[in-house]
């Protein structure tokens, strides 16, 4: 089985071992080509972003303007705050040098002089590991001014680590740029896209850590080799983070297009206590969940998951067995998005709060069937009406969880709307003022 991002070589995170296994060879090979050739090869390889949107990496690079007086930047997104996603830390831990090599190749291809690696603040241990690796790469002349001598080219770039401080929203690309600039992590309106006006108003490309780590392997083995791995429309391997009610949770690198059932039952050791599966979220908490009886034949790549009404996201597979209370799960997800909404757009700031409150009302036993429709309508009003994709991310789980598990949610609510008082407006508002007070 092909392993690209996390090869199973002992001590691969040591620079000697990495160099002994052909480390930085593909960078040397690549620097003989022109940047255009590299962008073209990555485009032809079919490498798609691993951060959630699965957008073609080569195409993204080709948006960078060729002639500009402004400096260009590369941002590598290691914010990784999506619940269910924990793959990037495995790269920081086991394969930091391939990430660095990918970063310098990408910088060369897009003409960036500086790359920022954004890592979430909670990952203190991994930031230290990564900083150590970057320092070593600097000392050996693979990054920085000394690159010119090491590789014998007229190009050099710097790689800096930027530590986040605990904001989910900073995984969104424009918000990540604001965070690097030292501002609040508010997403920006697009267009202009980062390739035109990004970091400090200069052309910028933002890629996920896993995407960048794939680049040296593509350069080494050629785009034909890469495009033949896994699903043709979404080639390569994907890091799947399996969590929840499985026997062997963890990060697994598998070719894209692997069967979801294969992933859960053979790779991750099946469900705890041999229970049946009620629900699977295939790509991190913001992606639409799948029913347990829907899983047969589902393949894990962007196109196949789209067909069954979900998305690949970050490849964080969350498995829930038959005893799971989906209402509690949905409340937790809604609470998460309420907490993490940056507060910039009204539909998301208010809507996420109301979704959580409505769900809690159902949990307290005061919900009606109409509340379920209300939740879907609130979700529909958030989706597509916000600056960034967090609005959609907050709306999808609520909307699809209720739509696909309506039978289960109907059990948690009262069938009939009972309004105990004549003043309908107040009772439906759930006002905090006792009715006796109002009636006085």
């Amino acid at each position, binding site marked *: 089985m092909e392993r690209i991002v996390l090869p199973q070589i002992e001590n691969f995170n040591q620079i000697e071992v990495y160099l002994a296994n052909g480390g930085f060879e593909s960078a040397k090979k690549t620097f003989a080509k022109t940047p255009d050739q590299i962008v073209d090869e990555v485009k032809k390889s079919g490498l798609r972003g691993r951060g959630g949107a699965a957008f073609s990496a080569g195409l993204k690079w080709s948006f960078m303007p060729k002639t500009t007086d402004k*400096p260009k930047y590369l941002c590598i997104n290691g914010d*990784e*705050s*999506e*619940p*269910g*996603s*924990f793959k*990037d*830390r495995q790269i920081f831990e086991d394969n930091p040098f391939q990430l660095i090599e990918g970063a310098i190749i990408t910088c060369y291809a897009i003409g960036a002089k500086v790359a920022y690696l954004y890592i*979430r*603040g*909670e*990952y*203190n*241990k991994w930031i230290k590991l990564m900083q150590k690796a970057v320092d070593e790469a600097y000392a050996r002349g693979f990054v920085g001014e000394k690159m010119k001598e090491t590789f014998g080219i007229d190009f050099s770039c710097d790689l*800096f680590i*930027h*530590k*986040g*401080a*605990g*904001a*989910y929203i900073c995984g969104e690309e424009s918000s990540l740029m604001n*965070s*690097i*600039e*030292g*501002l*609040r*992590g508010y997403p920006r309106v697009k267009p202009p896209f980062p390739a035109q006006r990004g970091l*400090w108003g200069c052309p910028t490309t933002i890629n996920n850590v896993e995407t960048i780590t794939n680049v040296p392997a593509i350069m080494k083995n050629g785009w034909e080799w890469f495009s033949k791995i896994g699903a043709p429309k979404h080639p390569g391997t994907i890091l799947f*983070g*399996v*969590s*929840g*009610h499985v026997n062997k*949770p*963890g*990060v697994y690198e598998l070719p894209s297009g692997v069967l979801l059932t294969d992933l859960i039952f053979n790779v991750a050791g099946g469900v705890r206590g041999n229970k049946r599966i009620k629900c699977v*979220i295939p790509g991190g*908490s913001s992606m639409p969940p799948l029913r347990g009886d829907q899983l047969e034949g589902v393949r894990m790549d962007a196109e196949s998951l789209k067909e069954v009404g979900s998305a690949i996201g970050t490849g*964080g597979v*969350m498995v*829930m067995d038959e005893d*799971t209370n989906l209402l*509690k*799960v949905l409340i*937790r*997800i809604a609470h*998460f998005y309420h*907490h*993490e909404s*940056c507060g910039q757009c009204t539909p998301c700031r208010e809507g996420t709060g109301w979704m959580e409150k409505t769900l809690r009302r159902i949990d307290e036993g005061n919900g009606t069937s109409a509340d379920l429709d209300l939740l879907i309508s609130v979700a529909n009003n958030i989706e597509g009406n916000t600056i960034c994709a967090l609005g959609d991310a907050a709306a999808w789980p609520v909307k699809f969880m209720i739509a696909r598990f309506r039978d289960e949610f109907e059990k948690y609510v009262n069938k009939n709307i009972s309004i105990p008082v004549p003043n309908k407006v107040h009772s439906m508002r759930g006002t905090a003022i006792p009715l006796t007070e109002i009636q006085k």
Partner: protein
Amino acid sequence: MIFKFTEENIKRIETARKKYPTALAAVMDTIYIAQEQNGFISNEVMEEIASVLGIDKVNVLSVVTFYTMYHTKPMGKYHVQVCTNVSCMLRGAYEIWDGVKDKLGLDHMKVSPDGKYSLEEVECMGACGYAPMIAVNEDYFENLNKEKVFEILDSLK
């Protein structure tokens, strides 16, 4: 109370400053350094950060209040963070959360009177495959159950 950066920390701020073309971009690193030295970010600390970087205090304030890892109040010596997000929740995080709350006698974002512990219910920490987890200050503890969590809490001196 007047806050001044130590000389060593001033050097660290200068190193951080060199990473970016603008002084404002170094504000996040500088707040971390200040928090390490002072324990939390008070009004005086924000003034000092602003004057060291040559930026407006409002820029510091806006960043401090946006990100959850900066504290504007003193936290305990051991800041216990329990993740209760979905992956952890499926594997029993709420038992741990309730247990820790009872054991420490604290609630979310509260500090014990002796200043030893503080407690926070955190969002996903990126340890979903090793759930449930807690973090004490900056260290992760993974694959836990209630007993193991209590052992960890007892070992904190």
